[in-house]
């Protein structure tokens, strides 16, 4: 097997009594686009800072290209870094901004020239090289900041939510740019974000970060289809998966949507269910119920339909061309059914998957 770009093992970090990273482990392969995703407040920033060497660790190892760098200073880790906030030096030109990390590492003029050419081509900012940051639009600044992070010629890069706060169309473009950049450089990108659509758009490999741990690591397809925890289901999916409280009695799970038969893989007394928006079908069928429609969000190709059942807020998605469903959800309430196999049960205490729905009762 090829050498791993990054192999993080048993990383722990506490501040006083507060455990932020809790025996956290994951691996990132060379030539892969890996996305660490999780809700805000799960330790993302601290994880980035420990990998980059801006924060010490209490325990664990950070193995970069086979060598443990946990005790090595930031400057010697040889990891490219695109930080979340991208302060550019206002008095420097775009070119000087991009070169700056290389000046720090005492690169030769030839190396600097090569790096500027490489990244300015990739991020389409060749025409901007002589400009000052205040002559650039927000999106151009962001591209320069990303270019600066990539200027360091290495094979492992950490990108900390670099698209946060950018408008829609710009993000769409930069997402394509980032994927193309990673593919052309054939390096390892480790990208951290709390935005599920970004994770879904960028990742080949996904790591789910929850409570200071990586709870699942797998290909995008597998994490999406087989979430091993409620955190996985919730962090990766758009609109966000529905959480459905309910009671388990034997192999019957009962919630506001009614009862279904379930198949348990692991025993659990107290469960919570998750169901993706696409698990619902607008219209009647077995196990149907009345949903009060609260908002139709027009996403262009489809509508997110927010509805309410006995004070539980839920969401499903319909296609803009599905006129039959569209007519139904334009009413105040409508009949909605769901696929029992779309209901996944998680242990209420651990959050881990314990079973799945089989059929309506």
């Amino acid at each position: 097997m090829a050498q791993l770009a990054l192999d993080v093992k048993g990383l722990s970090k506490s501040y006083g009594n507060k455990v932020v990273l809790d025996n956290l482990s994951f691996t990132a392969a060379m030539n892969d686009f890996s996305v660490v995703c999780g809700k805000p407040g799960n330790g993302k920033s601290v994880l980035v800072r420990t990998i980059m060497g801006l924060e010490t660790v209490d325990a664990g190892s950070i193995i970069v290209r086979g060598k443990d760098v946990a005790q090595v200073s930031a400057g010697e880790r040889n990891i490219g870094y695109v930080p979340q906030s991208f302060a550019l030096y206002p008095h420097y030109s775009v070119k000087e901004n991009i070169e700056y990390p290389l000046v720090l590492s005492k690169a030769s003029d030839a190396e600097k020239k090569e790096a500027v050419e490489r990244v300015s081509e990739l991020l389409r900012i060749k025409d901007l090289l002589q400009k000052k940051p205040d002559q650039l639009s927000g999106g151009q600044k962001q591209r320069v900041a990303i270019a600066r992070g990539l200027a360091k010629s290495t094979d492992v890069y950490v990108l900390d939510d670099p698209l946060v706060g950018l408008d829609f169309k710009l993000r769409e473009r930069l997402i394509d740019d980032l994927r193309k950049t990673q593919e052309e450089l054939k390096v390892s990108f480790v990208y951290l974000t709390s935005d599920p659509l970004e994770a879904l758009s960028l990742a080949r490999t996904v790591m789910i970060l929850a409570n200071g741990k990586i709870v699942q690591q797998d290909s995008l397809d597998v994490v999406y289809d087989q979430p091993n925890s409620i955190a996985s289901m919730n962090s990766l999916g758009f609109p966000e998966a529905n959480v459905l409280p309910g009671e388990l009695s034997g192999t019957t799970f009962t919630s506001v949507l009614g009862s279904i038969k379930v198949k348990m893989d692991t025993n659990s007394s107290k469960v919570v269910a998750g169901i993706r928006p696409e698990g619902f079908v607008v219209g009647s069928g077995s196990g149907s119920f009345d949903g009060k429609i609260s908002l139709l969000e027009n996403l262009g190709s489809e509508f997110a339909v927010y509805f309410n059942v006995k004070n539980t807020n839920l969401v499903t998605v319909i296609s803009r061309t599905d006129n039959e469903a569209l007519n139904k959800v334009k009413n105040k309430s409508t009949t909605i059914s769901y696929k029992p196999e779309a209901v996944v049960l998680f242990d209420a205490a651990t959050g881990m998957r314990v079973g799945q729905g089989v059929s309506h009762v």
Partner: protein
Amino acid sequence: MYDIRLENVTKKFGDFTAVNDINFTIPKSSVTVLLGPSGCGKTTLMRMIAGLENPTQGKIFFGEHDVTNVPTRRRNIGMVFQYPVIYRNTSVRKNLELPLLSEKLSKQELDKRVDEVAEILGLTDVLKKFVEELDNGTRQKIAVGREVARQPRIILFDEPITNIDLTSKLELKRSLKELFGRLQQTIIYVTHDQTEAMTLADQIALMQDGVITQSDSPKEIYENPNSQFAGWFLGNPGMNFVPPQFISVSGSKVSSKMFSQTIDLGSKASSVDTFGVRAEGISVSPSEIKGGVKARVTRKSIGAGGQYLLDLAVENLLVKARVSHSIGRSVSENVWTTIESDSITFFDKSGKAI
């Protein structure tokens, strides 16, 4: 209530033309969203309607009244900004009441107005709370409520959701939608967020470089963009554009190896330069189909509702196709694609729809 009419409205800042000779009517009692990328002139246009900027040229009418030189405070408009404008250290009820005090209403009338607005915005349960106890989504609702309670004829919203926490955004959107459905006022709403625009608007006025390039209902503007810009700006991802080398025109007939059939465009055929197709307009089959063109899958990702977005290479052309979860999950190297005629928009050399 009245229409807002813009006549040859232009705004220059030095050499820069922010708004360029706009003629446009905003219909009364409806929600018009000014949508466009940063720098398109949408905020400047709204500020002129508010009276916060004076047009360099042109006139602005509210109904029959020329308000071009009328100061903001006499235009009878309400305004909601990116950050909630509310009074600190007071209750929600007080916040909603204060703008009404100058109207010398009876206690009964005052309470009625406040309660009504609170009910629509879902603030009834927090009326007694101090604003410090509330998240910024709820604070923005209070700012909205303050403007609505005054019952102005026009209410302007300048990106009211943009800076609200992710967790409160949806609830605020829901409240605004509910509110807009119940108000009789003329509403102008500025945003760069297409989902917000498509969700809230009766009509979208799409802006680029200081002009309104298209104004239509969300459905119409999405399905029938009048320019490549509109096709690209609306939708996530935006429309795919296919260049001339994939198109052949013979008399009135337009064909492409990517089409399921030849299309007769009559006399318009001669001006065809490119065509556009949305990601969901490309039919994808995992196995070879008659008349289908082979495409290589270069990337896969997942979009809303679990659908897959495929990056496809047809020869040297890259397009994005949206397919069901099961098809997306199963395809690997090659797929076969066709495009039905009703999914195609033709554009001329200048980028205008034909």
